[in-house]
């Protein structure tokens, strides 16, 4: 097990910064997720940690050791690729044994090690098959077994679930998490899927334009976003962001509810909400519309759980409220979080 740390790491492709000064440190045995839209630099960051890309500047440490000059094979890491990168000319057994061969592990122990790794993912029966004879889910397990067999100090996973269909993805997510808890190896996981990130990560690093915008637990990221990007990236639909003087006010759609939902005692902030469109989604209703009054014409969304039965009509204006603690404030210039202020 080891801690991975990056110090002011940068990567330029020509003049274009892909990763632009990232300081990040995992904790021992942690499941850290790098989350961000495509092109945010998360995969480049992972590849630099793996040693597949050379940083333009900055340092990478694994277990306290600067590894910048070490080739990938000397970093004691394992990586699972988005495509799984199984060697098509080898059987599953040989695929899993491949790292052992490279490390000149004595041949007698291969069998037991491969079987151990295979048993972790329940693929003992597939050892004699070729990758092309496997389903997507089986391939993913083989890739994981191959990563596990060399007992790395760090796992690097690059969107390993994105090639699975939606149903399989949910169960694979669960297995992956259980597996990581069991072996307790530090894991860095790259994804653009916020549901995966929230479900898997001990902590999430939200990245955009080559920088880490926020590092925190899923709860912190969701409820206390550090800036407007994080606020707008997470949640579906994302946080409502409304300009007010030199501030931006943010509140989640599910905290933006009709007045009658709350009692009198709550510390409430009230808005006039003109509903222009209603989407019925079964468990929820999404209301699209505009605010009135001081925040005139700001476009916002409300998400009503099906437990809220208030009758809402398209084209009508209602009094909606947000609890004061659910209002987040951001600086208009920098987009960074600021302290609360009265509206």
């Amino acid at each position, binding site marked *: 097990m080891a801690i991975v740390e990056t110090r002011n790491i940068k990567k330029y492709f020509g003049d274009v910064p892909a990763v632009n000064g990232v300081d990040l440190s995992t904790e021992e045995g942690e499941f850290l997720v790098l989350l961000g839209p495509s092109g945010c630099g998360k995969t480049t960051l992972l590849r630099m940690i793996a040693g*597949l890309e050379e940083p333009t500047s900055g340092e990478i440490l694994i277990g306290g050791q600067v590894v910048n000059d070490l080739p990938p094979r000397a970093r004691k890491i394992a990586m699972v690729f988005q495509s799984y990168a199984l*060697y098509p000319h080898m059987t599953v057994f040989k695929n899993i044994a491949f790292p052992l061969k490279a490390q000149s592990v004595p041949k007698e122990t291969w069998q037991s090690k491969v079987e151990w790794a295979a048993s972790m993912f329940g693929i003992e029966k597939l050892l004699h098959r070729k990758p092309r004879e496997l389903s997507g889910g089986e391939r993913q397990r083989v890739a994981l077994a191959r990563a596990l067999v060399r007992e790395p100090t760090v796992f690097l996973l690059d969107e390993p679930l994105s090639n699975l269909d939606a149903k399989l993805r949910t169960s694979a997510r669960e297995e992956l998490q259980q597996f990581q808890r069991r072996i307790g190896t530090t894991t860095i996981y790259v994804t653009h899927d916020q549901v995966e990130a929230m479900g898997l990560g001990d902590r999430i690093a939200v990245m955009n334009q080559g920088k880490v915008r926020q590092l925190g637990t899923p709860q912190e990221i969701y409820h206390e976003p550090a800036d407007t990007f994080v606020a707008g990236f997470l949640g579906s639909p994302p946080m409502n962001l409304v300009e007010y003087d030199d501030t931006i006010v943010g509140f989640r759609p599910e905290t933006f509810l009709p007045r009658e939902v709350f009692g009198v005692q709550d510390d409430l902030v009230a808005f006039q909400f003109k509903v222009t469109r209603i989407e019925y989604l079964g468990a929820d209703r999404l209301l699209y519309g505009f605010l009135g009054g001081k925040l005139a014409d700001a476009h916002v969304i409300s998400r009503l759980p099906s437990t809220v039965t208030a009758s809402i009509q398209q084209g009508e204006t209602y009094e909606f409220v947000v609890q004061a603690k659910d209002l987040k404030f951001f600086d208009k210039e920098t987009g960074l979080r600021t302290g609360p202020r009265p509206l």
Partner: protein
Amino acid sequence: MPAVLRRLKRLGARGSHFGIVALFTVFAAFPFFWMVVTTFKRTPDLMNTKNNPFLFNQPPTLEHLRVLFFDTLYGRWLWNTAFVGVLVVAITLLLAVPAAYSLARLTGRGGEQLGIGIFLTYLVPPTILFIPLARVVSNLGLKDSLWSLILVYPSFTVPFCTWLLMGFFKAIPRDLEEAAMIDGYSRFGAFVKVVIPLSIAGILTVVIFSLTLVMQEFVYGMTFISFASQYTVSVGVPTFLVRGDVYFWGSLMAACFIASVPIAILYNFFVDRFIAGFTVGAVKG
């Protein structure tokens, strides 16, 4: 009535299709057929304009084959060709495989340009180079030696094979090499352990292609070598067996047929890949 007409028309179309294919096939294959027929005919039968040349007017004979293998240097030439072929293939692979990989993966954007540049040298024909090369070969003391051919022949195999292999290597997903590097191999180790085993088909293509080119080569062989015992098949047969006015047609035809057909059958399996190389993606798919 129209149904019958349509049927006739369809029959006619099928008939003309068959006719075209048959005509071309005969055009292409007739000389080889004729080689076989001539090989087994007795000389007096061949040399009689009154005889129907399609019939065996006298019983068939193996005499021409006996003459070819025991009274001429043909066996020696076959051996020479094989010797040169094997070594040229080895040199070609040694030069072209790493070069193609380098162009496909390691040299970045410039690789593509350089690759096209290398391919274009394939268009520089022996007929421009043979005069200076004759001088170079004799200065190196390789005149009349098979080694002169082994030295020079890769000049037409390497450019095209590099180009072909570059295409093969590019088609291998990069992830596989990166996975191998993470699994414990060096950049070069990944190439040896993953890329090469995955390119066996491509490498085999290059082997066959180089062998055919070596068998075909004529100009250099004739320029550099003047001892009959050092000829390759494609030079020895037309220059040495066709000497003076006496032609041993039976033996000649046998010589041509034996050296032509086996390699042609091998080549047939790989032809689509060569075409892909020739057409440089002028056609997609």
